């Protein structure tokens, strides 16, 4: 099996994780796909830096999160305005959509925390490791993210139950 084929099998096994993190940070299927492609390219370039003595998943999760956040940051000037208009104009159809919209409106670092906590089921220390910030910062971000979500969803409490 050649190097490329070996790399393909790595991509096959991590694509779901990468795509889901990308989707939770972009909230758009097309953007999530583009960001995932960028993650795979970064993985290809950074593969020599990976230490096989360390577990692969936390390393890959960190690479993915940072790569998607950088990707978002780079294309912010062109994409932010229409996205914001769409968010404020669109009337959410159901409670899930309301929740998605509330998460989408969170600051980027809060979104990353929420994604890693609720999608990946990571603990605060693992999130801190992934985002390379202190544990206390992650706790604060998660607390604030929950506060914002609760305040935004308060008017719809009955539909959420």
């Amino acid at each position, binding site marked *: 099996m050649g190097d*490329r084929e070996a*790399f*393909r099998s790595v*991509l*096959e096994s991590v*694509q*779901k994780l*990468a*795509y*889901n993190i990308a*989707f*939770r940070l972009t909230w758009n*299927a097309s953007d999530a*796909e583009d960001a*995932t*492609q960028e993650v*795979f*390219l970064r993985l*290809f370039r950074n593969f020599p830096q990976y230490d096989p003595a360390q577990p692969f998943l936390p390393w890959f999760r960190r690479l993915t999160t940072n790569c998607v956040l950088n990707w978002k940051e780079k294309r912010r000037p062109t994409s932010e305005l229409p996205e914001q208009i769409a968010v404020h104009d669109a009337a959410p159809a159901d*409670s*899930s959509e309301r*929740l998605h919209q509330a*998460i989408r409106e969170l600051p980027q670092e809060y979104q990353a925390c*929420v994604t890693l*906590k*609720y*999608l990946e089921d990571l603990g605060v220390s693992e999130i801190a490791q992934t985002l390379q910030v202190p544990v206390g910062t992650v706790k604060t971000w998660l607390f604030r993210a*929950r506060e914002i*979500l*609760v305040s935004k*969803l*308060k008017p719809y*409490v009955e539909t*959420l*139950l």
Partner: protein
Amino acid sequence: MMTSCDETREHLESCDDCRLHIVVEARMRTLPVLEPPKGLVDRAMKALPRAVPLKREFFRLAAAAVMLIGLSVAALNAGLDQSAPVVTVKTRTAHALETTSAMFNAWRSETWKQ
């Protein structure tokens, strides 16, 4: 005597804020996991840069060097074949010397006349 569980339940029944916190927390845990689009890996593999084998790179460089030498030789030959008369350094120097000495002689004869 009320257990802490009962107290909590009672509090939750009356406190909207706490209830909402729990509901939001629970809903976040049930966010669906999405399937990546079909062909995502294939497209990624196509977009990856291909590593050029060392052997092929060597031959490419060798071919470029041979072409460069060939072009230099051709340019040199083309320069020698030109039919226009070539003014050598020696001819130029001799001409310049003649001019200079004629000028000097003219000046000397003018000066000595006075």
